């Protein structure tokens, strides 16, 4: 019985979006999205700007609260509507500790050193023992290739370095899901590679990832599945090869022709 329980738990998708809707005023940005992400799956979201892919990502950890529908991560409902505001805040803070997010503009804390950036949430939120977590943080920094920068301030780093620190900062919470929101869009072209490399390594380790990106090469190489969105809806999804070499939908063909030109 125990074995079947573990099995069924593993089969259950890590992320389930059910009829997800989001409006800003009268503008409906997400028009009923249904999407499941399996454990250890790398899902890449592509689509023209304004298609709602970033909003979708931000609904997963409730940085945007959905107007309708259900978001479930690791078996737990994220956008609970049954809770009063105070209880919901408590709930969402706890749920977010299981999800790491990396942003387009890095958003490192400028008043803290690289190491302090990484230690902040594990010590302040999880109240973990600093000594134990410092060793772990240094390991993470080593993993993203920035061990020697631990005492630098963000302003002293290049964009690519800052973004790698941001990834390490998210990983320090030991999340079961990582959300990447156009993380290379603000980087100089020569710095994109180093960030993608870190993400590739993470994917290889079996991290569940949703990646919003314009890097089609990365999508092709790393994604298990590519989802193409337009105007707040999923137009087409499939394995990278399918989507990139043989898209079914006219809208997908047009988009790919534009970006791969």
């Amino acid at each position, binding site marked *: 019985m125990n074995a079947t329980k573990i099995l069924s738990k593993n089969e259950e998708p890590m992320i389930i979006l059910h009829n997800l809707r989001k409006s800003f005023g009268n503008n409906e940005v997400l028009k009923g999205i249904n999407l499941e992400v399996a454990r250890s799956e790398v899902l890449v979201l592509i689509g023209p700007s304004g298609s709602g892919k970033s909003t979708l990502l931000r609904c997963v*950890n409730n*940085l945007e609260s959905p107007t309708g529908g259900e978001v479930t991560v690791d078996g737990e409902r994220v956008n609970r509507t049954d809770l009063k505001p105070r209880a919901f*805040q408590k709930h969402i*803070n*706890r*749920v*977010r*500790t299981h*999800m*790491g*997010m990396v*942003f387009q*503009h890095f*958003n*490192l*804390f*400028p*008043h*803290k050193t690289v190491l302090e950036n990484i230690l*902040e*949430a594990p010590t*302040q*939120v*999880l109240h973990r023992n600093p000594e134990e977590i410092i060793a772990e943080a240094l390991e993470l920094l080593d993993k993203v290739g920035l061990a020697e920068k631990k005492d*630098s*301030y*963000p*302003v*002293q780093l290049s964009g690519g370095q800052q973004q790698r620190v*941001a990834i390490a*900062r*998210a990983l320090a*919470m030991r999340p079961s899901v990582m959300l990447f929101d156009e993380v290379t869009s603000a980087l100089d072209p020569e710095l994109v590679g180093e960030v993608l490399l870190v993400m590739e390594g993470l994917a290889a380790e079996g991290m569940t990832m949703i990646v919003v990106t314009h890097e089609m090469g990365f999508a092709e190489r790393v994604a298990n599945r590519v989802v193409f969105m337009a105007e707040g809806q999923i137009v087409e999804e499939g394995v990278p090869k399918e989507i990139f070499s043989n898209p079914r939908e006219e809208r997908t063909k047009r988009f790919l022709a534009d970006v791969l030109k």
Partner: protein
Amino acid sequence: MLDWQVIIHYFPFLVKGALITLEISVISLILGLAAGLVAALCILSTNPFLHWPGRFYVWIIRSTPLLVQLFIIYFGLPQFGISLNPFWSGVLALALNTGAYNAETIRGGILAVPKGQQEASRSLGMSKVLTMRRIVLPQAMRLIIPPLGNNFVILIKDTSLVSTITLVELTLTAQRLIGSTYKPFEMYLMAAVLYAILTTCAALLLGQVERRTTWGHV
């Protein structure tokens, strides 16, 4: 011609007055900072029971003269059984007054911290309070210090108004000495010099604090 003998003889008396001015300034400054921070957080709150009282406080203080506020507290409140001595009346009026200006300064600083900072912090599971305390306020401080210094300097000079409710601080000390010496120029000149010393020290001190918040910026 300046009467140097008068200056040398009476200077220690004025320094004594200046110490009272310093004392009332420092206490009002600390209380005014606390009031400003609380009011700023109230105004930024989405809770109407916090937002509107905060707005009202800033509005009523900024739209009335400090001298009238001081008189209301010192001469008006005893009517309702609240009698404060000149010193604490002065502190209360000055703290409330500078607090309203600090509130706007602090609010501006908080709003100037990029939204992405809060998003990053919240995405790590940090609560609103933790985010404000650990991430937003320290960054806001860097932006707030220069205009806050301005408020401090104004506060120090405004303490001279407390002379009107018989607190023998720097200005009233000078006035009283004029009564016995008939040397208004010398006395007010010395008072002015001492005010300048106090305000300059405050500015220098704040410059030191500012230099500690460079975070790797050159």
